[in-house]
């Protein structure tokens, strides 16, 4: 089905089901309960999961397949966001204008930056991409371009946003909410209550989810295509590539541009969900984040980057919100002394200490699961398989791009 191998089709279907039912799966705890803190099924975070999933899937096409480690991909994310918000300002709040533009413009930027940066390899390449991205960040953060043009281009550290005085030539009256063709507002949410549970079905989330599935499907096709194979060959042995009559530069550049366009799309979607483009999303920390997401999940695997993105965003948004009040409510069932003791123990790892937990998780994953989270999943799966059929012959069909 879909022109993909059976295993890939199965993976795609599983991912589709998971995203479709995410509002249920991410809200396993009743709304009022102490554990509700761990629920992640609210629109903003669900949107972030899939948007950063797209970002990481695209990054993986470059890093996972070719091995070129870009440290400046957040620049394309920012470019995509600015493109969409500018379309809001100039035309109207319909996201249909901005998203294709985000892809095209980030593609153009990726072509220029990639063309120059790919003249070098290894860490020299990484630093070139970092330098370009940091330049773009500095320019956006202080709106340096705006100083030359005499009008704001990025609106500095506040972030680019839509004002009532903006032209919005396609409409007469001012709008304030991004929508798709006037059919549905991105923030529309239907809340379903089942007993104590509550589930949010958000239009923006499903829009992003559909796009994520499309990009995931495209990534599968790329992984399994001759082009994808060539990219893995670039990573494996450039010398042999050259002496097999293959020009490595355009292969790497094409991967760079494709992943840049993925990043631009992700950035565009961020602005489509929340009509503001902040300069921080171009900073090196943002570029570093997608690197971490990809490695954490499992570089070069199809589903790994999505898992990594979800993992990091979950910690950022859920663990940072756990304060001492919440801790007390968790441990309220314990006797007073022990309750306070537990709160003191857990306190450094949550709330303002969420970074500490994240750092520890990075170390634990990379020490114990060298292949990232995907390897964790594989180990669990192997454990089950071994239990079920001890005498099975070793699986020789394991393809390296798994």
């Amino acid at each position: 089905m879909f022109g993909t191998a059976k295993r890939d089709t199965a993976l795609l279907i599983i991912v589709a089901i998971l995203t479709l039912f995410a509002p249920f799966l991410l809200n396993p705890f009743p709304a009022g309960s102490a554990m509700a803190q761990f629920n992640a099924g609210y629109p903003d975070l669900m949107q972030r999961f899939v948007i950063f999933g797209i970002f990481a899937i695209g990054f993986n096409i470059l890093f996972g397949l070719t091995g070129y480690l870009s440290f400046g991909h957040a620049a394309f994310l920012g470019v995509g966001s600015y493109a969409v918000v500018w379309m809001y300002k100039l035309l109207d709040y319909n996201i249909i204008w901005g998203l294709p533009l985000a892809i095209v413009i980030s593609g153009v930027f990726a072509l220029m930056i990639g063309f120059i940066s790919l003249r070098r390899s290894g860490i020299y390449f990484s630093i070139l991409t970092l330098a370009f991205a940091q330049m773009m960040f500095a320019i956006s953060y202080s709106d340096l371009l705006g100083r030359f043009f005499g009008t704001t281009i990025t609106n500095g550290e506040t972030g680019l946003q839509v004002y009532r005085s903006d032209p919005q030539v396609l409409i007469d009256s001012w709008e304030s909410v991004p929508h798709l063709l006037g059919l549905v507002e991105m923030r529309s949410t239907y809340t379903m209550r089942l007993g104590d549970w509550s589930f949010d079905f958000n239009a923006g989330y499903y829009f992003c989810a559909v796009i994520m599935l499309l990009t995931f499907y495209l990534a599968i096709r790329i992984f399994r295509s001759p082009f994808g194979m060539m990219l893995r060959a670039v990573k494996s042995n450039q010398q042999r590539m050259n002496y097999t009559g293959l020009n490595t530069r355009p292969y790497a550049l094409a991967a760079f541009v494709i992943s840049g366009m993925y990043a631009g799309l992700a950035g565009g979607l961020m602005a489509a969900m929340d009509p503001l483009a902040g300069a921080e999303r171009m900073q090196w920390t943002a570029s570093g984040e997608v690197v971490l997401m990809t490695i954490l999940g499992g570089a070069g695997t199809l589903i790994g980057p999505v898992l990594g993105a979800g993992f990091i965003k979950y910690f950022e948004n859920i663990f940072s919100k756990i304060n001492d009040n919440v801790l007390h409510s968790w441990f309220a069932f314990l006797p007073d002394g022990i309750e306070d003791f537990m709160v003191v123990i857990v306190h450094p790892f949550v709330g303002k200490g969420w970074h500490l937990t994240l750092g520890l998780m990075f170390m634990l994953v990379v020490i114990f699961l060298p292949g990232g989270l995907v390897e964790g999943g594989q180990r669990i799966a192997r454990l089950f398989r071994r239990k079920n059929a001890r005498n099975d012959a070793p699986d020789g069909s394991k393809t390296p791009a798994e």
Partner: protein
Amino acid sequence: MDAILLQILNGLDKGSAYALIALGLTLIFGTLGVVNFAHGALFMIGAFCSVTLQKILTISTISIDETQKDFLGRPLEVKTPIMENWFGPEIGGLIIDWSVPLAILFAIPVMLVIGYVMERGLIKHFYKRPHADQILVTFGLAIVLQEVIKYFYGANPIPTPAPDAFRGSFDFGALLGLDTALAYPYWRLVYFAFSAVIIGAVFAFLQFTTFGMVVRAGMADRETVGLLGIDIDRRFTIMFGIAAAVAGLAGVMYAPINSPNYHMGMDFLVLSFVVVVVGGMGSLPGAVLAGFMLGILESFASMNEIKAILPGIDQIIIYVVAIIILLTRPRGLMGRKGVMEE
């Protein structure tokens, strides 16, 4: 003219911090082949060695002064440092005043131990792993280290002044017979001299000791040296400790220049990578040269005359220079072929 002289001084000073951090980083790159994202955190821990020693030296006894009130209107608790009790206010005060230079002695063993533990406990297991894994684990470690510091010291910068003897500035203008003042802070001159000594010591160590020769040989060709029956691993462990100590010492003496805070390591991390790569992978002189060069260029770019022509150039100069150098010289200023190019 005087403006340019001043910026050269500034550049040398900034450059010495960059060079010291990059030196340690490139030692780890070159000898161990490890991408160490925790190197900035080592610099930060060095700065907090100064803070810690200052706190230790100012451990105080508390007495109640009924004549003064605190902010809630209660009698004020007056703190007297134990140092002043022991040695009298004069000498005790002097010891506290000199806590930053004294912290050098404190920091060397601390940083060597931290470096040793890091290498044996963690980094050692990642020599054979892909660079991606090294990035993830050292980045995780960097976050953990800075969060631990934040837990104990808070997020606010902590003033760590230089000894009173080094307050104020030296007037080069008078020295050179210029009309205009060309004042430069004493402590910054001390920092520059200190870095020069450290850099010189590292180079001398690598150049003139057998240990250094083996390490240099190991940087050039690890396998061959290993085949010669030399225990290169143990020497690399010591090298990691030294790299940590260099970063730490850079931090110790930096504390009076800018009050240390827990995230100062991350502020320097990206920059130090740029410096190392511009200098060229695996080249110690390259790292030092690039450090000073970028420091001076950054200082020049912040001159009003330059900013008048190119507004905002000071924000991006480092990156522009990095791009130009990497495009004109494929392996940075003095890089060796084949190091971190795969």
